């Protein structure tokens, strides 16, 4: 005990034994800093070095996709016929492809497409999935049954078939690609949200809200959604790389982005043909895909840990 030795040396005067009584106000004080759930999650995320590095990397990639093509002296479709397949040099940082086009420029232009599909696809999935899952979970019973059976049917459809169908109906290109990819991707989030909502509905604070006469829409927006947000954010962070990969794969097999537009997948397709002689043409788009996907996944992991109430100290 810290003070023991001291108090034995100190002379205890009679004065010190005067009654002081209880300070009621201070006995109710809350000592720790006022910290909301989101602030706490952010603080925990910051401590995760890997997640922060991933996040910085992604911000860097996004900025490059937006600004690099404007700053970089070479255009993505400009062909330098004399130097086709040239390796990386000082003025052409990633080298040239088999049509003499600057790969560095193409990576960032292609990145715009890949990232856009990733983000837009995830956003559409989010909107549809959250709404669908929320309604299914909240109402339960027959409505939930029917909605979940529909989901199960959709999940059973192989997405290649959907992609081919869409490309026949809508033609190839970014639009039809998005439609095809989003057609069944929202189901994962819908199930997650539904599960969480069903879980939350058992909570006493939802019961309390009903007892207070809170209308349904307020229960959904004030009580259910904010408590589901963390799951939604994590899942969305993970779904972006799935979209990027799906797009890459489809473009790789020729079903996705068509020339003259390009994406990482399309670039990889072209690069693959030159792989044995000029590996740099495959290397850079492949790196772009894998590193971006890795970064999103690591960030997602970090977010999930940051939001997990059980890991709170």
């Amino acid at each position, binding site marked *: 005990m810290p003070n023991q030795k001291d108090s034995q040396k100190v002379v205890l005067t009679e004065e010190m034994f005067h009654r002081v009584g209880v300070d009621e*106000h201070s006995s*109710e004080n809350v000592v720790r800093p006022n*910290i909301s*759930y989101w602030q706490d999650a952010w603080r925990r995320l910051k401590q995760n070095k890997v997640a922060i590095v991933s996040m910085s990397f992604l911000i860097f990639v996004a900025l490059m996709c937006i600004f690099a093509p404007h700053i970089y002296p070479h255009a993505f479709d400009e062909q330098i016929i004399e130097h086709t397949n040239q390796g990386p040099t000082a003025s052409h940082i990633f080298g040239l492809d088999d049509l003499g086009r600057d790969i560095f420029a193409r990576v960032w232009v292609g990145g715009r497409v890949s990232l856009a599909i990733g983000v837009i696809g995830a956003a559409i999935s989010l909107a549809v999935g959250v709404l669908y899952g929320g309604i299914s979970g909240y109402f339960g019973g027959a409505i939930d049954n029917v909605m979940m059976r529909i989901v199960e049917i959709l999940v059973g459809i192989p997405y290649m078939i959907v992609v081919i169908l869409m490309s026949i109906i809508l033609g190839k290109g970014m639009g039809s690609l998005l439609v095809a990819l989003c057609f069944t991707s929202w189901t994962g989030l819908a199930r997650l949200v539904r599960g969480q909502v069903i879980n939350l509905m058992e909570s006493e604070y939802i019961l309390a809200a009903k*007892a207070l*006469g809170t209308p349904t829409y307020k229960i959904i927006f004030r009580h259910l959604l904010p*408590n589901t947000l963390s799951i939604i954010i994590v899942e969305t962070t993970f779904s972006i790389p799935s979209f990027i990969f799906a797009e890459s794969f489809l473009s790789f097999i020729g079903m996705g982005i068509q020339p003259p537009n390009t994406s990482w997948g399309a670039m990889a397709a072209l690069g693959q043909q030159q792989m044995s002689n000029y590996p740099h043409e495959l290397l850079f788009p492949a790196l772009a895909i894998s590193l971006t996907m890795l970064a999103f996944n690591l960030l997602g992991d970090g977010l999930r840990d940051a939001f997990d109430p059980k890991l709170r100290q």
Partner: protein
Amino acid sequence: MNMETREPLVKVSHLKKYFPVQGKRVLKAVDDVSFEIYPGETLGLVGESGCGKTTCGRTVLGLYPATGGSIEYDGKDISRLKDKKEILKFKKNAQMIFQDPYASLNPRMTVGDIISEGMENHHIPGGHTRVQELLGMVGLNKEHANRFPHEFSGGQRQRIGIARALAVEPDFIVCDEPISALDVSIQAQVVNLLIRLQEELGLTYLFIAHDLSMVRHISDRVGVMYMGQLVELGKSQEVYNHPIHFYTQALLSAIPVPDPDIERNKTVLPLEGEVGSPIDSAPGCRFKGRCKRATEACGKVTPSLREVEKGHFVACHVIDN
């Protein structure tokens, strides 16, 4: 307090609440329960886990739709209300305090928002000032309105729950095990608060708990439930000092008394076995399997509450003889 001439504020008649379980089977959580609560009094409802007391409380408030029977509030049958406005009015008059202080407050809302939610629903004016008033009423500081539930202790959270219920100015509050999750000295704080508020605001309580000594302290009358049915009902002191039903006797003898001389020398009435399953229960007295005095008749007909002494009701065939 002459109870016979006053009208009860809450009148529960033959209340049934059944839950479907795994296909055709039925869980009879509350099976033919009747009681009355008079204005200004506290009716305690005790029993062990699975007896149906919490389900009973929630059904009385309309949080679960009743399977059978009726619930009258202030003379009106609220168990079959369809009109949204009437339902909302009832929710303003009758509120609930929940058991788990850690689960009954939305972790994402500030204390101020939690308390004012009810006020918004019923368009009660007052805003911030009233929230601060309510916080003061339950012994918390004004500054706490901006904080989040996880920053508070169990007892403080429970008081926030009480403030939330009071915000809509109810007359009747169902207290569903409000102190079970709290430490002993905090329990005393919350119970004192509830008693004081009852006096100041003229509240009526249905106090559900399994802590028998606390229930005796706060209740005017008490009912003992076992497997969905009321087995004994009467004035608190009566039931505790002269329990008649064998289950009540066993229950009371099992309460540990904080006095070594009493506790180490008392005989606990043995209650063998475990509580039966309320799923598909057979006809007859639910307590038959564990009762030393059971007879043939006990297995055939379910006993109903009968007045054995003035104001003291017991449901038992053996007693009647």
